[in-house]
């Protein structure tokens, strides 16, 4: 059966037509339900694409055929490795139809015998080809097809394929997230890295980052806008761009600036690069340059919400509040529940003195997030004592006509009493004039009692001693009272 009959189409050099035909036939020949039919369909699909590619890209086919020619000198015809597939080996060997068909196809294409090494090289050739043409690189379908290649089903080659792919991707990691996810799903590096994560990360740091550790972060930058970039050094650009992202993450502004400039030299009109540039200028407070970056980004990608929000933030800092509000209103029409945008809008209204609008905005925040502290604080500030009344009830005094009374009533009664006692003792203790007065009074008393002009030394000494004893006893009593009050305050306070 001819390949075009299997695919159900007329001979065509259009790859998309071939793909659609394959997809349509795949529904009829599912690998699990109809392994023979599926095998036949796969072969036909591969051959059809090959022919289409030969027609459209002679230079690429020259590389492939050169590789094939080198391998042909050492090749022997070997059928069994190609037909070894998971779960279908026994069926393949009993199918006389499929084996001659395979040989016939090989003869038609004048292919060299397919040794494992040849298959592997052929496979890696395809990887290389897909990667080095940017449009094909960012098309997940190409990689999906590659993951369905025979080599991927060959158990004997799995280890070699895995290693070759790891080595290739280690030096060519600049792929969109969807491709990395597809590759990780096919090769299952996460499971393999479980055995020795550290070793894997040391041997393949880029694959580790892009496929395992930090995939969501490093692949957050888009590739689609580069499709029209023309003849640029894509890998250089992508390298500088992701390095800029990482430098900004680490707040390494010098490296960030360097990488951003280098990326810009290669291709200055990528929205994600412009966003990173704008972020850099925003952080370094170079608002005019930041604004230029985001304006440029909006011209390229008019739907880019990040650029509008950054612009609104810049306008707010520059006190161009009306412009900021305009951008924010547009943004909130797209993302009505974004708290950052609502918050900034509220601040703009406050600065403009439009408190009603500000109040509305903060109430919108509370509708989305009922315990938002910023909204609660600002609304409380607007409402002042009204909020105070509503939230905390009429039992609280609102206008302290007697501040002392208010303070007393606010503190638990027992604590208040002990605190007062302590305060009194403190006041007594710190007034040293009291002790001097006591001493003078003692002398005066002694003089009066003895009724003489001057007491003798003995009397003076006694007087001093008595005074000291009285003072000491008094201090002791006061200290005891002080301590008791402290203990009681601690006890009731901790309750």
């Amino acid at each position, binding site marked *: 059966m001819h390949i075009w009959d299997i695919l159900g189409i007329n001979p065509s050099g259009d790859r998309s037509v071939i793909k659609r035909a394959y997809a349509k036939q795949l529904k009829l020949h599912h690998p699990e339900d109809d392994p023979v039919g599926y095998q036949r369909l796969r072969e036909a699909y591969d051959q059809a694409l090959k022919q289409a590619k030969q027609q459209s890209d002679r230079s690429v086919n020259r590389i492939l055929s050169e590789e094939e020619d080198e391998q042909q000198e050492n090749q022997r015809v070997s059928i069994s490795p190609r037909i070894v597939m998971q779960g279908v080996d026994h069926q393949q060997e009993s199918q006389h139809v499929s084996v001659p068909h395979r040989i016939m196809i090989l003869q038609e294409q004048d292919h060299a015998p397919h040794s494992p090494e040849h298959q592997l090289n052929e496979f890696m050739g395809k990887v290389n080809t897909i990667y080095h043409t940017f449009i094909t690189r960012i098309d997940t379908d190409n990689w999906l097809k590659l993951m369905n290649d025979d080599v991927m089903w060959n158990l004997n080659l799995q280890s070699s394929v895995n290693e070759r792919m790891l080595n290739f991707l280690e030096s060519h990691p600049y792929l969109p997230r969807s491709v990395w996810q597809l590759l990780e799903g096919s090769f299952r590096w996460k499971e393999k890295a479980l055995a020795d994560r550290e070793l894997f990360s040391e041997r393949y740091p880029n694959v580790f980052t892009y496929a395992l550790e930090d*995939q*969501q*972060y490093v692949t*957050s930058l888009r590739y689609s806008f580069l499709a029209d970039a023309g003849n640029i050094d894509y890998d250089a650009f992508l390298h500088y761009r992701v390095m800029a*992202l990482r430098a*900004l*993450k*680490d*707040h390494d502004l010098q490296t960030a600036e360097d990488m951003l400039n280098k990326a810009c030299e290669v291709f200055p009109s990528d929205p*994600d690069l412009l*966003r*990173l540039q704008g*972020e850099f200028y925003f*952080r370094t407070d170079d608002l005019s340059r930041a604004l230029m970056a985001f304006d440029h980004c909006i011209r390229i990608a008019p739907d880019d*919400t*990040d650029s509008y*929000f950054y612009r609104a*933030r810049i306008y707010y800092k520059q006190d161009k509040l009306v412009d900021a509000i305009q951008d924010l209103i547009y943004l909130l029409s797209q*993302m009505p529940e*974004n*708290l*950052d945008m609502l*918050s*900034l809008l509220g601040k703009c209204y406050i600065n403009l003195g439009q408190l009603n609008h500000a109040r509305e905005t903060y109430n919108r925040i509370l509708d989305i997030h009922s*315990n*938002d*502290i*910023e909204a*609660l*604080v*600002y609304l*409380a*500030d607007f409402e*002042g*004592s009204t*909020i*105070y009344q509503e*939230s*905390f009830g009429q039992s609280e005094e*609102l*206008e*302290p006509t007697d*501040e002392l009374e*208010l*303070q007393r009533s*606010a*503190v*638990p009664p027992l*604590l208040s009493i002990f*605190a007062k006692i302590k305060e009194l003792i403190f006041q007594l203790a710190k007034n040293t004039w009291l002790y001097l007065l006591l001493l003078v009074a003692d002398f005066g008393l002694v003089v009066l009692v003895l009724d003489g002009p001057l007491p003798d030394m003995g009397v003076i000494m006694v007087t001093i001693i008595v005074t000291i004893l009285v003072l000491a006893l008094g201090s002791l009593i006061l200290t005891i009272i002080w301590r008791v009050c*402290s203990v009681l*305050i*601690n006890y009731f*306070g*901790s309750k």
Partner: protein
Amino acid sequence: MDYYNLEVRQQLSLYIHALSSFCLKGHNPYPFAKNMHLIFENKSRLSQMLDQWEIDDSEKLKEKLDWFFQTGHRKEFRDSSMLLSGLSISERTAFIQSLPDGDPRTAKLIVSNHYFTRLPGEGIAAYDHSWCVYACCAGYELGYLTEEDKWRMVAVCVREARIAYSSWKDYAIGYAAGADFTESSSSLEYVNKNQDYLIKLLIAPDSPLRHISLSY
């Protein structure tokens, strides 16, 4: 700031009262907020608080205070914000959701993302300043700091707080964000439980915040 000057010390005392009042929480802490001296006289409570930080001598206290000054929780918050700021709006949430279950970064990133552009430049520094002042006063009461050290450190805290925040509103928001961030509360539990107290601190006529202004 000449913290040897009596008038300056009186002013600093008002700042101590205001800044440390944010550290209270629980059921009806407002009466104590108005009478912080009751808190600072409760040596056992002060000791318990320092024990949570494993501080039981002067040297450890000074290390902790130095950390508050140089680094604080604000650095980690800033790092989280830097990480998120490189991502687009749509990628930020996706990135947080992509983190594996049990990843210790998740809760803090959720809090950072919630307050992403809404805090002033110093972020959650309010949380560091309040706890630094509280620790200074607690340390002094427990004999770990001299009076001079206490006033010196409080003066520095107050100066930094006034540079970072222009109003008590912004300070309160920064503090609340810091509380939820340090407690890794992705559901913003601190705010849920203490919002009434924070609002009361801000608007009550007899609040300690009414006695002193943050702005210059």
